[in-house]
């Protein structure tokens, strides 16, 4: 026991710094980033690593997020291990290239400390940005602690390079990106063993010339899109394997879905991200103190959607609420995760009362008491319509 404690290296880091440490451990070759709040401290830390010679990488200070993602597409196509990061408007500006990166099957890793999208402009946190990128063929993780952010970036490289898919590692802007927490860092040599350099089938190399990004006519285009469907399906399995392998190597694992006090829960909140999950756990504790069998399910792997694991996690409850931190306007329900959960339930014939609660928009404080109320609401019989919690109506 003493020995283990001796070798553990625990640092006080924000989630943004945790990303930078993971990128350094992964021996990334090319980084292209553009400053945007709350992502900026990632690139500041990485710049420091490069300046100090701790990270042997080219850091491209691009002139926009569109170019940031374009540059890492080019670098990844050339066979380099790459990294970029952005938030909010930056992710929106790069949106075009998101589709291209996944269409070209490039193993890019991008960190997204999430932030509300304009207008009006807000630098604060919600998931309006990354939810706009949820269906573009990227794998998306949503982490809930600085430790998990660190671990997930490393896992993301392994998954990306095995599935040949780009990966977003998202987490709460400010609420995590700027929050100092304990993070246990891995030995960098061990991380490099966990992330061996495996040759990719195609790269831009004059010794083996290929054409990337061609024109596909109606006779061909659909097949490549279907390939992406299969790749995302496969990534579900790979993500589980990678998490298990990581857990064996470094002693920390998360699964693709995390459940809190769900063993005997009658009512569940299903959600994502650090603040929603942490506060929902506190609310579940409170609810249990007050006699409600409450639990929380957290979606860690958001794309591909872990349908089987989610359905399993909620199979025993009487009713559930899906707590969303983004508004997708004009749909049958405004919460993106709710649509996923409802679709998954419908497709599997699972019929349970399920309500969509939206909260934490533009970093409106989600008090534990608010989330506790979700449990009482579920007990009383959930409403059909979407609940916009915390807004003045």
């Amino acid at each position: 026991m003493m020995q283990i404690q001796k070798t553990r290296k625990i640092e006080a880091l924000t989630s943004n710094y945790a990303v930078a440490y993971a990128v350094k451990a992964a021996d990334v070759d090319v980084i292209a980033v553009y400053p945007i709040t709350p992502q900026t401290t990632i690139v500041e830390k990485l710049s420091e690593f490069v300046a100090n010679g701790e990270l042997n990488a080219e850091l491209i200070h691009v002139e926009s997020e569109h170019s940031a993602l374009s540059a890492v597409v080019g670098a990844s196509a050339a066979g380099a291990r790459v990294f970029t990061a952005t938030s909010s408007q930056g992710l929106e500006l790069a949106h075009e290239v998101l589709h291209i990166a996944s269409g070209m099957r490039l193993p890019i890793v991008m960190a997204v400390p999430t932030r509300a999208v304009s207008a009006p402009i807000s630098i604060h946190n919600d998931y309006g940005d990354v939810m706009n990128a949820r269906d573009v063929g990227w794998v998306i993780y949503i982490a809930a602690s600085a430790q998990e952010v660190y671990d997930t970036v490393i896992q993301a490289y392994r998954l990306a390079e095995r599935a040949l898919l780009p990966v977003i590692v998202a987490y709460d802007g400010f609420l995590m990106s700027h929050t100092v927490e304990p993070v246990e860092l891995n030995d960098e040599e061990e991380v490099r063993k966990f992330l061996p350099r495996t040759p990719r089938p195609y790269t831009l190399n004059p010794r083996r010339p290929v054409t990337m990004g061609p024109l596909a006519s109606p006779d061909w285009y659909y097949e490549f899109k279907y390939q992406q469907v299969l790749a995302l399906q496969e990534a579900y399995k790979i993500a589980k394997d990678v998490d298990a392998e990581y857990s064996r190597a470094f002693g920390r694992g998360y699964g693709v879905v995390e459940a809190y006090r769900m063993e005997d829960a009658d009512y569940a909140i299903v959600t994502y991200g650090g603040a929603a999950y942490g506060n929902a756990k506190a609310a579940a504790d409170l609810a249990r103190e007050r006699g409600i069998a409450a639990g929380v399910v957290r979606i860690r792997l958001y794309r591909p959607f872990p349908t089987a694991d989610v359905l399993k996690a909620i199979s025993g409850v009487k009713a559930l609420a899906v707590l969303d931190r983004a508004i997708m306007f004009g749909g049958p329900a405004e919460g993106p995760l709710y649509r996923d959960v409802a679709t998954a339930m419908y497709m599997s014939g699972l019929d349970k009362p399920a309500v969509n609660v939206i909260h934490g928009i533009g970093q409106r404080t989600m008090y534990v008491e608010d989330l506790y109320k979700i449990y009482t609401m579920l007990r009383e019989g959930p409403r059909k319509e979407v609940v916009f919690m915390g807004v003045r109506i």
Partner: protein
Amino acid sequence: MGGAARGMVTAAQVLATAAILEGKYAQAFPEFGPERRGAPVKSYLRISDRPIYIREPVLHPDVIVVADQSLFGAENPLEGAKDTSILVVNGVYKAPIKTYYVDATTLAIKVLGRPIVNTALIGAVVKATGVVSLGTVAEALKKYFTGRLYDLNVKLVEMAYQETVGL
């Protein structure tokens, strides 16, 4: 709570770092805005022996640190205070709860030559709470300062620790 330029975000981070170095769990986060230097800013800190998952602002703090007297006019730093809460204040202020005083501004000017009070207030918090040791604070400061500035800040923490008075 303090003006942004007074480094209250860093102060909370240093304390969190010290707690983590001592094997505790900690969480330090500022309340953010696009404000520039000098605007009031709140910074939160939780320290625990168990993992911390709650990510709510600290509603009922055990310790309230006020870096700038003027905030008592503009804000209410004692909002949410419990009977058992402790106030650590730069200068003199009469509050209805247990209060620790330190003239952080004078100390900072004396040591750093500038009225940057955050590290002085770290010393005051350590005196008031004993939540971490001065030794680990000095260790934690290494992550935030180097060279001469590090030496001066360690000195400032120690001086503030000595000069903090509880009433």
